[in-house]
């Protein structure tokens, strides 16, 4: 289907089903229950999952295939966001031209930086990209936000003000990013029994775009171009002596991944029309590196999993506080309750970084191939068990 083989088609279908049904899947607990804390099915986080998924998929095209480790990809995400917000400020809140511009600007920017940085390889390349991104960040944060020439609005972040021209804005259109009138914030709210689910227009726009981008990534992975990129990683010497010029291949990969990043940045602005300079900082570049490695560099689905994993921790674990812990453990006797809260306390709320750091280490120590390998191992284990005894499997389920 769609020019993919059976295995890839089923992967794409699974991803499509998961993203389309995400509002259900991510809200497994009844709202109001103690476990509702772990629900992730609200618009903002769902949007972030897919947007960072796109970012990581694109990054993986460069890093996973060619092995070139860029430490400055956040810069492309940042310029994407800035372009989109400028589009909002100058023309209209329609997201299509904004996203298109962010991809184009990111492509140009990555062409420039890639052309220069790819003159070097290995860690020298990494540091060149890092240096460019850090320069972009520093300039965006201060110099480019001076009152005379305010391109980025610095620390506060670029946003739309009432006195912006917005040439094509009409009163009948929503006063926030929209797709031909459909506001990105509009959410359909569904209550089924104790459960509640949100279907958000912005999320579905992002989800559809992510599926397209995922599909394109599969095509790239399976194409002669993708094979050449893997050849770049495997043996550049042989490639050179086989009459192939590695430079344009890596540059193309760099620009493509830069465009993915720009698209992600544009979508972020489309979901929330504010572009902060921190998105370009090295920590943001490092984050996408971690997402990709954590999920499994070079695999198709890994980066998406990695992105989801990190964003989940950032948004869910950071919000758990002692009050919630007391609720969870309230069934225990008082002494035990306090003890459990005491034990868990360092890992939640302000300690979410600690949990994340430990998870990084555990994953990379025990699952060298990242979360994808974990999935594979789990799959194999289940299959083997399934062969063993059917009843063992039924026992298994309630425990999960």
């Amino acid at each position, binding site marked *: 289907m769609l020019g993919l083989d059976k295995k890839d088609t089923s992967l794409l279908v699974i991803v499509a089903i998961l993203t389309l049904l995400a509002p259900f899947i991510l809200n497994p607990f009844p709202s109001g229950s103690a476990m509702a804390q772990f629900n992730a099915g609200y*618009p903002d*986080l769902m949007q972030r999952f897919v947007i960072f998924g796109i970012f990581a998929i694109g990054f993986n095209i460069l890093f996973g295939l060619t092995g070139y480790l860029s430490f400055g990809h956040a810069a492309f995400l940042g310029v994407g966001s800035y372009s989109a917000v400028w589009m909002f400020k100058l023309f209209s809140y329609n997201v299509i031209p904004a996203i298109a511009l962010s991809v184009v600007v990111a492509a140009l920017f990555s062409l420039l930086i890639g052309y220069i940085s790819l003159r070097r390889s290995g860690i020298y390349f990494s540091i060149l990209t890092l240096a460019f991104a850090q320069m972009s960040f520093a300039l965006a944060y*201060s110099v480019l936000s001076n009152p005379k020439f305010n391109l980025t609005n610095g620390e*506060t972040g670029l946003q739309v003000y*009432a006195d912006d021209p917005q040439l094509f804005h009409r009163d009948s259109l929503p006063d926030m990013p*929209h797709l031909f009138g459909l506001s990105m914030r509009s959410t*359909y709210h569904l*209550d089924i029994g104790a459960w509640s689910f949100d279907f958000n227009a912005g999320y579905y726009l992002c989800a559809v775009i992510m599926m397209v981008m995922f599909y394109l990534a599969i095509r790239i992975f399976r194409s002669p171009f993708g094979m050449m990129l893997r050849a770049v990683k495997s043996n550049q010497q042989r490639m050179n002596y086989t009459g192939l010029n590695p430079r344009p291949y890596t540059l193309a990969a760099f620009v493509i991944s830069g465009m993915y990043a720009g698209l992600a940045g544009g979508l972020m602005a489309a979901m929330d029309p504010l572009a902060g300079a921190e998105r370009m900082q090295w920590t943001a570049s490092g984050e996408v590196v971690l997402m990709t490695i954590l999920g499994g560099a070079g695999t198709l689905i890994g980066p998406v999993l990695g992105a989801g994993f990190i964003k989940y921790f950032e948004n869910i674990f950071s*919000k758990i506080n002692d009050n919630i812990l007391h609720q969870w453990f309230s069934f225990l006797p008082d002494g035990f309750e306090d003890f459990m809260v005491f034990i868990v306390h360092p890992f939640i709320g302000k300690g*979410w970084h600690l949990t994340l750091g430990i998870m990084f280490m555990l994953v990379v120590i025990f699952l060298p191939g990242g979360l994808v390998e974990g999935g594979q191992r789990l799959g194999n284990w289940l299959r083997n068990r399934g062969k063993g005894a059917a009843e063992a499997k039924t026992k298994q389920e309630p425990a999960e």
Partner: protein
Amino acid sequence: MSNNELTRRGLLRTGAVAGAGVALPTIFTASSAAAYTNEPTGGTVTLGFNVPQTGPYADEGNDELLAQQLAVEHLNGEGDGGCLNTFTSKALKGNGILGKKVTFVTGDTQTKSDAARASAKSMIEKDGAIMINGGSSSGVAVAVQGLCQDAGVIFMAGLTHANDTTGKDRKANGFRHFFNAYMSGAALAPVLAKEMGNDRRAYHLTADYNWGWTQEESIVASTEALGWETVNTVKTPLASTDFSSYIAPVLNSGADVLVLNHYGGNMVNSLTNAIQFGLLDKVANGKDFKIVVPLYSELMAAGAGENIKGVLGSMNYNWQLDNEGSRAFVKSFGEKYGKPPSNSAQTCYAQVLLYADACERAGTFNPCGVAEALEGFEFDGLGNGKTLYRAEDHQCFKDVLVVRGAQNPTNAYDTLEIVEITPVEQVMYPPNHPMFGGDEATLGECNPGA
């Protein structure tokens, strides 16, 4: 709990605008239409406390969180009631807000505008928070304030000192209790004149971002009005950790006062560096060299340790302030947590109480009703003395404290001493002051999210 009326509303509105074209199939309809975002329907009302929990300002965020939790206790009638007993408005009864028990959710701003918006959104979208409070930087405050305006909830700012928060970026749904850079300048100027004379030459080191610039602008304006001369204003990168190369040329520049428009870690390091270079031991232009830190906080004072001795600055509040409200607050905070409250803690505590009180007086949680009740509200008994929430820009006007690093602190908490309580009249300015966006700055329309 029924969440996200906000967004459902949004859809209804958009649907109406865009016509039948975007009609989505209706499977189930949500319960009765709410009048505003996250209208509390059960027996509880949820507040969102969005403070930095990771990064350099984590301790400050933690202090804010402690104060917010204390405020919730007092609202729910637990503890000793704190400022509920001293607050001049007697609308709060200690039975929650409008009879609903107060619960809260917390989030981590990471002192980044993106992350702060993400966590505020999650509180609004997922947890049904009806008010967002907290934060320790102006960038975050402006970003979250904009978000709350769009979402239709009330934003009660935490620590934010830049003029823009209630200046050019002011919003109808946003309120600031904390003072601002202009007030710092206006309050400090007479004290500086008294202590250092009218013919000083000042050298500014300024953190190179929005807040730093507005503070520099304010201090330069008010000191030049005294007759001071500004020798140089140097911007330092926010990411700097060592300021020696910025401090080193100061002595040679002909300046005799160093103004550090830095906050947090920047200020701790630049002040430490300045002391290392021995600036305070020097004589320049025949006068003793002086250092001014326009915005102080207790945590900065703790971080800077002995270096703050004798250094002047301003604060929104200090626990040593002796009035009825302050005493009640310090007693209840100190007894619960074993330390006196910081000024960011106090501003968050006051903001939560003010919000609750406004709801009571308005008789509704509707942001527009609450905003109306807050606008022009005059009160006392929350620790700062007589205070006005000005209707035009949602800025609180109250006395400003000028403080100095104590020479002989007796414990870890009295490292700052109050030099002067600058009366509110001196720090007043018109709402259309040029530093605050001039005539163009408007609050816009209040947005209830419906």
